[in-house]
């Protein structure tokens, strides 16, 4: 399992967080779980990079935080996408797709 994991390129984590939050507001642990699940354990987000990223995104105003009650009935800090965050997600996702397509094309070149 461990050898299937890959490190996230710089900036990709932000994109993944935004995408995760686009579905619904989540707390930090759930975000990392969700990313791990959806990527079938390929992407594993370390707390050491997750939380700084969350705080950075919050500072930029792309996400906002509020305290809520978690699924296990505890106080947790939930993050939600803001309007600017949503726009940012669109541009970033677009750029990412273009980039990955282009990279794939180059790599698949006969």
């Amino acid at each position, binding site marked *: 399992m461990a050898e299937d994991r890959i490190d996230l390129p710089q900036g990709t984590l932000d994109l993944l967080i935004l995408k995760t939050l686009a579905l619904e507001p989540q*707390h*930090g*642990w759930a975000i990392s*779980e969700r990313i791990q699940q959806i990527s079938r354990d390929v992407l594993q987000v*370390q*707390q*050491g990079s997750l*939380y*700084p*990223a*969350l*705080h*950075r995104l*919050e*500072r*930029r*105003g792309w996400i906002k935080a509020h305290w809520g009650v*978690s699924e*296990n009935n*505890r*106080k*947790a*800090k939930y993050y939600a996408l803001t309007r600017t965050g949503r726009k940012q997600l669109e541009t970033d996702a677009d750029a990412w797709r273009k980039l990955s397509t282009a990279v794939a094309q180059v790599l698949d070149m006969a």
Partner: protein
Amino acid sequence: MLTDLLHRLRALVRRKTVERELNDELRFHFDRQVEKYVEAGITRDEAIRRSRMEFGGIESVKEECREARGVMAIETTVQDLRYAVRTLRKSPAFSVIAAVTLALGIGANTAIFSVVEAVMLRALPYRDPGRLVRFEGDAPHGSGIESGVDSSVTYGDFAAWKSQSLAFEDMAAYYRPGGYARVTLTGGEPETVQGGFVSAEFFPLMGVSPMVGRWFTSEEVNERERVVVLSQGLWMRRFGGSRDAIGNSLEIDGERARVIGVMPVTFQFPNRDVQFWMPVSTNRSWGEMVPPDTEHSRGYWARWYVVGRLKSGVTIERAQAEMNAIHERLQREAPDPNRLSNMRVVPLRVELSENTRLAIYVLFAAVCCVLLIACSNVANLVLARGAGREREMAVRTALGAGRGRLVRQLFTESAVLALFSGGLGLLAATLGIRALVAYAPADIYRLDEAGIDSGVLGFAMGVSLLAAILFGLAPAWTIARASANEALKSGARGGTGTAGMARTRGLLVVVEFALSVLLLTGAGLLVRSFLAVEAVDPGFRPERVLTMNVAMPGGTSDARRHEVDEQTLARVRAIPGVQAVGAIDGLFDVQPRDFGVRAIDGRAAESRTKWAPLTWTSIRGDYMHAMGARLLRGRLFTELDGPDSPLVAVIDESMARRYWPNEDRVGKRIKGFDQRGKDDDWVTVIGVVEDMRRHGREQKLAAHVYEWYKQSGARTPDLVVRTAGDPKALAGTLRNVVRGLDRTAILSPVMTLEQELSDQLAPRRFQTCLLTLFSLMAVMLASVGIYGVMHYSVAQRTHEIGVRMALGARPENVVRMVIGQGISLAATGLGAGMAGAWWLTRLLGSLLFGVTATDPVTFGTVAVLLTLVAILASAIPALRAARVDPMTALRCD
């Protein structure tokens, strides 16, 4: 952008809340992870263990979150500040020593800077002073001006410039300081003062309004109206600062002048001696404006200084180009041998003598050296303490603090220390400035305005921060670089200090010594110069001699003046205890100018190019005996040498050497330009006296021709009285006797000749004392530095020394080893310093007298002295090392 800012602000202002939230958030994540593992069927303990492993360093996660929040910079600074203050308070000995050391350096720097600022940097108190210029040029050779650069022009040239130039808004002329600008004030206690005789354009040009009344109009200047604008000082002295002064009158040179205004205290143009301003046309020399006489020296005709105001937007260069053209045209159309050979346009600034400027630069460089030494000393202390803090740093690194973070924290400590020291230094500077102003010789213009203002405050602050960078950064880097692992592994509580750190500390001591050598050599050279100046034989015996100047108010008849001079001598001679009394025209106040004699019997006339300093002076009574001058050949004047007998002169050796180097001078005949020279009579030399350096022992000798008062008709206002006993006991009597003779006479304070000579040396004494003081500070700091390094090194090597002694090393071997180490550090610094001093002392230039810049005696003394200091400073740690008990040393861990 706004959210960003608000976010940062909230994080900053509600630091505690934000911090708690971060804690809660991470805690929740951790608990949730544990829960997940437990749900998956892992035991609780194992779940916690695994979660912890995954989580990694919680502190570093927090740290990164804080950073991500973007308040790091401010918040950590606050944190570091608190931490710094706490750390500094925890080690008071270190903090006090460091603060005092730095405060000395910063204080000295600030004090000298305040002088630099007041004297050199601060804008002159005139309207738009940047556009004000003055003019100077090189004197044509043989024009009677000794120094090559001069500013005086003829009134005719001034008028021509004014009408022909386009680059200037206006120009104004004023009578050059001294000479006819010195006048007597009568009514009340009579005094001689310097007046400003200025053209009509002057006040509008300078753009400073009178604080009371008005300035004079061009009509008043043209009409030669005797109207006067007072300086604030004169206004206070004569009128008690009352507004009634306006319309009142003042007696200047015996004639009434009507007061029309008072200038503010800051207005001191052309210098601070000037007590009042009057129309140029009211000066008593105004009537002597006759066409140029090429035979006379230019000093006689060109007596006007000019200030100009550039039109806005006109550069100095453009004005200069225009002046060149005008000057050339004048030379072509109206040639005048007394005109300066060129004309330079110079921004108006405080004019400092070359020596004063140089002295200020030297002193400023000196205090910078002192500060550098103080900084390296403190850097050394920080390093020594840093060695003890290695474990603290290692622990912090292990807990997740980055190296940059550690450097920043250490640097904050330095900055706090430096700013605190800066505060102390400012206090020291305040006292220092007061002392400087009080003890400085009076000849430095605007020095009394030195003080702490915003500029000086900013400087002190800047210097403190610079000091923090200097003494803080290197140690911070060295300490933070020291490997965390090493420090943690070595069990020693104090840490061992890495080799790199020891090298840095050694290097700092070397630098301190090198700088001390520079300062001490400079100071040594100045001290030697001072002693050399003092050792110069003035050519007369100044012990037990009193002097006093007896001036008569303007308007006194020549007959009355001579009567007063004659009676003064007679009455003073009658005072019991007086051995000899004489008088001279200008005892100290002589500026020997380049002159020649008009004719020498039996020889061709001397060309102007051969001219050299020469002075004609009239004497009266027993002047030569009163001064204690030795007659080398021939005879002195007697009362038989009268106006109708053949003209005679006594000359000095310089004069004799100049014209008759290899023959008997007595009986030779000359014709001069001055006084008697106006008649075409030969003057016969009757005697030769020793050279007398009346105008200062540092000045080069000037040839003197002494004339007898009866023949020259000149006044002899300077009284010289040789007494049998203590001269001061007679001072009061002397004054009373002369005062009793004439109520209107203007008497200077009675001085002893020794005091006058000593006053001539005041600037040199002051510079020498200050530089010596700074260099002693430097040496003291450097010796503390070397002591600190040796002390620390011995403490570090207690164990090693113990082993050596257990193996049979004797105490004297240990002492020799430690002292040897100290000396080798000092010697390296000494070598570097000597090399530097060899290059730099030549910059002292004109401050040196009688020694070369590479004087071997000075260099040798400095080397010996500093070696001794190094030995003494390492002796105490060495003796301590020798007392190490091998048993204890080996046992301690």
